[in-house]
């Protein structure tokens, strides 16, 4: 029934204030993206590009002090429709003097209370999350089954303990855990990383969320386990059709699971569009960063023709001193003399260059 995207993030900015440098670290700086119902959006980017912080901001789980989150995170499901950042700004005061931020005053208590009120009934119930490092992400002092059952009791209509247990075992079966009835009683340390991740996925799905955020679900696992987890996620995607935000730096994972892809760099989205166009290297409208990213990954073709891999020169963007112009300007190899001036001094906006495909690059439009 619902029209429009389940999650629409508009111009999200998550800044952390560094006391020692007296400056904001702009981890997420103007992210705009949206996820359609039943689709998977893959978010890809280097470390430090703000992928995880975007996810944690969506969940209201940013706890560093004093951090500032502004923008709009619109969640629209069958039961809920609200901006998850509503009125949070009221709890922050920033003292500026001659253009520099001198100090930040944040009413942390009020902020935390407001966030918890806003997120009540959202966390777990509407949005569930899978983390990297499955072994550390499960409570080591409780059995995995109990933890899944707890999530079921908290977030679904089931309120009977035995029913919750049966349901937890059902979900353990769904994630292809071997002998789920026995595994129910296992503590996380008795399980391998891959099994823990299956349990985490079962726990996230068990609350039947409207949106699933998977933050690097395969990172930190063995290569063979990684591909099994990817297969499992693909299988679950077809059988349950959960709307998913999939975060990974691994393009292969993104490729095999996503319908749409957002490419992040330096805290912002450089390209947003359907997976098949973004992940094909010879597509006409392609951000130079995405092109460079794709050609830096070994493919069948590279191995066959013994081609050398391309390297993206330079370092990841310093998120304290973000330049005025395009964030990728320093490392871009596709700048032409015609647009150079513009690239260096004004930041291009994320503009639709083809229906459904947005790019932040002056090569495809002029302002």
């Amino acid at each position, binding site marked *: 029934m619902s029209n429009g995207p389940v999650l629409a993030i508009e111009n999200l900015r998550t800044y952390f204030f560094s006391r020692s440098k007296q400056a904001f670290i702009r981890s997420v700086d103007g992210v705009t993206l949206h996820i359609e119902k039943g689709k998977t959006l893959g978010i890809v980017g280097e470390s430090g590009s703000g992928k995880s912080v975007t996810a944690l901001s969506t969940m209201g*789980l940013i706890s560093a002090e004093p951090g500032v989150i502004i923008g709009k995170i619109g969640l629209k499901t069958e039961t809920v429709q609200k901006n998850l950042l509503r009125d949070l700004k009221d709890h922050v005061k920033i003292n500026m003097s001659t253009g520099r931020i001198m100090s930040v005053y944040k009413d942390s208590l009020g902020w935390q209370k407001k966030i918890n009120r806003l997120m009540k009934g959202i*966390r*777990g119930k509407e949005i569930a*999350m899978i*983390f990297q490092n499955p072994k*550390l*992400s499960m*409570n080591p*002092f409780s059995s995995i089954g109990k933890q899944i059952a707890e999530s079921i009791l908290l977030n679904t209509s089931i309120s009977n303990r035995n029913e919750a247990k049966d349901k937890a075992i059902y979900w353990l079966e769904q994630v292809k855990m071997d002998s789920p009835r026995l595994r129910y009683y296992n503590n996380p340390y008795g399980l391998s990383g891959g099994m823990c991740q299956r349990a985490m996925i079962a*726990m996230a799905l068990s609350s039947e969320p409207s949106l699933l955020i998977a933050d690097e679900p395969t990172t930190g696992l063995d290569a063979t386990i990684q591909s099994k987890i990817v297969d499992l996620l693909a299988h679950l995607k077809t059988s349950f059709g959960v709307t998913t935000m999939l975060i990974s730096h691994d393009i292969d994972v993104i490729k095999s699971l996503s319908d749409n892809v957002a490419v992040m760099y330096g805290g912002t989205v450089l390209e947003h569009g359907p997976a098949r166009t973004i992940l094909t290297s010879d597509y006409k409208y392609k951000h130079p960063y995405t092109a460079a990213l794709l050609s830096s990954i070994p493919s069948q073709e590279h191995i066959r023709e013994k081609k050398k891999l391309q390297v993206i020169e330079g370092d990841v963007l310093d998120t304290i001193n973000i330049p005025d112009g395009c964030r990728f300007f320093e490392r871009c190899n596709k700048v032409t003399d015609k647009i150079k001036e513009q690239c260096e001094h004004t930041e291009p906006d994320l503009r639709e260059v083809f229906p459904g495909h947005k790019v932040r690059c002056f090569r495809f439009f002029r302002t």
Partner: protein
Amino acid sequence: MAALLLLGVSFVVFIILFLSPGNPFNALLKEQAATGAVSDAAKRGLSVPSSWYTQYLSWLGNILKGDFGNSIQTGLPVLSEVIRVSINTVYLTAGSMIMTLVLAVPIAVLSARRGLTPTNWFFTIFTYVVSAIPVFWFGYIVIYISIHQFGVFPLASSSSSQGWSWFHFMLPVIVLGLGNGTISEVVRYLREEMSRVFAEEYILTARAKGASIWKHSFKEGFLLPITEIIASKIPFLLGGAVVVEQVFSWPGMGRMAWQAAQYRDYPLIMGITVVAAIIVRMGSLMQRVVQIMVNPRASRE
């Protein structure tokens, strides 16, 4: 392990007693002429072993038979006497431990959750100041105030024949609870453990699924550190109890040990040492049991 520990403790205390000046015979023969000759005659008459190791071994042999000997001062059997008064000491130390925790835990929990806000700063400094107060001084001040301001004589009667009143019970407990010097340590340790656990990834998971972080951090962030603190502070409390019992004439083990030391009542000192060591050992045993119950991994390590 426990037996070895008791053996070691008793041996060390014995050596200290043996090397320290004075001996029970001087105390015993105080009324009479305590010359060397009389003392030696008493030794022979009581058939005391001559060398230090035969003395220790004969004591050890009797212990293994369950005989702790008789007090030199009173002539009463040591074991039953020590057990009788150790109950009072357990009341005092348990009560003051609870007192310490009642004060320290809320401060620790609050500052772990909310960070060092001005209020928490105040409370933390307060605990440091309280910890710096010497317990005997604090005890006398409390007695002074209660006599001169309230006209109540707060000393527990050493015979305790007229029974306990709450007032007599609470004052020493409060004094030892505040003055044992461990409050600031309890606050600091608990706060650090809790903040560490709050930063664990599984707490993030708990928040992400909408569960209570208190519930998920309880075992590692509260139960384990609390039992660890209790077990490790029992020796300090027993030490503090010696002073507080003396100040308040509390009929406990500490006071008895104090008197026994003055009279060079060797069998009594040794008996108290063994019972105190058993109490300390029970504390660490309790900690171990909780640890294994909470964390099944610990049992295999």
